[in-house]
């Protein structure tokens, strides 16, 4: 099996799904990759090189380079979806959701419900998330908790290239709106990715490390940090189970609760501010359904309740780190009622 980057995995998925289904279209700012600049089409393959080559094979009618107006992109995509196309719309940075949220949460998310199941909205919104890119407070947030809050939206946070391909394929074939969150610092990570198409169902967590002493739940880039901590602590005979839920909506609650019942200790890692976060959401879930199994308070490793700092040392401090995760694991392990 070939090693591919996260970026290649997404690009390959777009090619394969556009070939498989003529209803799949791509739209967004610069998705044609520099078209209109020097007149050269597909000069650099989109803002992060992810849509490279699509315009050449599928043409401008299926790879739609839009004006800089998120509200129009999402409105057009939602309308196209209810009318039979399967748009993959790009929101260049998730931080820009504010100007197009009506189209997403009050329109696309509710069509199926409000039309009594007669309308389908097979819409994928690909967006970039994450700090560490030195892009300041308005281009560095994660914000998946906001989309997870909305009934009718599915929310996907792939942590590696293999999952990215399988989950994006599933998202494009899904009949509901899906918010597909790509962490900017994962684009160059590699994994074994099959050439053939495959799907990974939503709501199925991946257990990336087996263990019985403590469980860590971590999403996206944080899953890598959690694995790193688990591997380190294994050498000290602390056996850490790592759960990457892969989707926050639907959430694989069973796998998380089972892990708490098996280990009695839980650390949740969430690269977002703590209030109304996925970490709090999972903590609430566990307290409600597995309180009796807990041997220590649940530890939450999140960002502080502040905007993402621009100063690099502060930005690094803002993001949950392997050291902070390790400290949280040690704390729950050391807890004596």
């Amino acid at each position: 099996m070939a090693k591919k980057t996260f970026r290649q995995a997404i690009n390959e998925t777009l090619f394969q799904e556009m070939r498989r289904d003529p209803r799949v279209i791509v739209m967004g700012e610069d998705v044609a990759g520099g078209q209109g600049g020097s007149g050269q089409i597909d000069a650099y393959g989109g803002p992060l090189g992810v849509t490279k080559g699509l315009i050449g094979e599928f043409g401008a009618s299926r790879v739609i380079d839009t004006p800089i107006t998120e509200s129009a992109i999402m409105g057009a995509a939602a309308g196209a979806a209810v009318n039979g196309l399967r748009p993959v719309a790009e929101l260049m940075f998730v931080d820009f959701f504010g100007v197009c949220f009506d189209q997403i949460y009050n329109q696309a998310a509710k069509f199926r419900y409000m039309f009594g199941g007669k309308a389908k909205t097979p819409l994928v919104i690909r967006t970039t998330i994450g700090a560490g890119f030195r892009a300041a407070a308005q281009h560095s947030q994660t914000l998946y908790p906001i989309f997870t809050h909305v009934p009718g939206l599915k929310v996907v946070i792939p942590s590696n290239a293999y999952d990215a391909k399988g989950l994006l394929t599933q998202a494009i074939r899904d009949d509901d709106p899906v918010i597909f969150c790509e962490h900017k610092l994962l684009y160059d990570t590699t994994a074994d990715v099959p050439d053939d198409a495959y799907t990974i169902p939503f709501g199925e967590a991946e257990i990336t490390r087996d263990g019985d002493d403590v469980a860590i739940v971590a999403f996206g880039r944080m899953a890598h940090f959690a694995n790193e901590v688990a591997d380190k602590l294994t050498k000290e005979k602390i056996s850490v189970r790592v759960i990457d839920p892969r989707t926050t909506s639907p959430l694989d609650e069973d796998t998380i609760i089972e892990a708490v019942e098996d280990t009695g200790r839980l650390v949740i890692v969430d690269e977002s501010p703590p209030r109304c976060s996925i970490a709090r959401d999972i903590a609430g879930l566990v307290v409600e359904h597995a309180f009796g199994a807990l041997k220590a308070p649940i530890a939450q490793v999140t960002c502080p309740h502040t905007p993402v700092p621009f100063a690099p040392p502060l930005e690094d401090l803002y993001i949950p780190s392997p050291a902070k995760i390790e400290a949280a694991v040690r704390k729950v392990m050391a807890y004596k009622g």
Partner: protein
Amino acid sequence: MSAIVPVRVPKWGLAMTEGKLTAWHKTVGDKVAKGEDLADIESSKIANVLEAPESGVLRRIVAHVDETLPVGALLGVIADMSASDSDLDAYVAEMKDKFAAEAAEAEAPLPDKINVHGQTIQYLKLAPADFEGGVPLVLIHGFGGDLNNWLFNQAELAKERAVYAFDLPGHGGSSKAVADPSLDGLTGVVAAAIRALGLSPVNVAGHSLGGALALNLALKYPELVNAVATICGAGYGSAVNRDYVNGYLAAARRKDLQPVAELLFTDKSLITRDMLDDMIKMKRLDGVEEALHAIAKAALDPVALVALRDRLDTIKAPILGLWGAKDEVILLPEIIGLPLTAHILPDAGHMAHMEAAGEVNKLIEAFLAEKD
């Protein structure tokens, strides 16, 4: 013999790049016979016993337990007592780095693909370096498997002949669309692939469903087949455990697959999370689920398999039948009166070619050497 023979980290399967030494069965100074258990090696996917490559005395142990080394790296040295200590030390010093570097540079053979009957068939060819002519061996995996199932067999059997491991339609790297999922349909594709590669006549060895296909190939295409070996083969009349087939079809997650995979092995510790992950990843590929359901229904149909058994006596090619005594997927059939040479491997389950690889390889090699 006075030669110094290196004991090296084996390469079990395409994906193996390094191995962990988990135990030595011998200590320095012990006599070893060729084929005797020498050490335990673990890759990320599977653990197995490494057999002594030659008879002699284990004179040096270079790698210690729990050490992880690249494929090809030196583990120890076998020689007789005529080799001097200084010769051995010089040999170890020279070879230790040389082998590791050599192995890193060596290009692993990659699978190839051919088109037959509008379907793509993936195969892996391994052949001795100085190979000239001879009857090639074709390996056919079982239901839900792929050519990597022969990881402990193909390289070993390829010391004497060219060995081609196929991926069946709907499996591995072959087309996932299966035109005809019946025994005859799948056999037809195998026959067409053998013809397209210009191999016939061939020896053919099959595991489980692949065993039934090997027998059916000899029955329907006698001109293509020199000799047949089956390992825990279907097609001898005993039913296939539907708990296995249906459990495999239904499992979508590792934890659902674990109890199903346990039916395959006597030694359940051989099942690793990487092995289960690979199975789940294959099942997720577009078209695989449909293909497996269709094959389970058509090719593993008990009536079709009994019909095959009833015609075994018309097969002209000699047959070697190997069974694992602890097989939980295909129980030992009533073989009295069947026209074959049978061997029962006392400690093996359904994956006998993995669990008792050394024995299976020897039995197949001896059988083929006699029939060529």
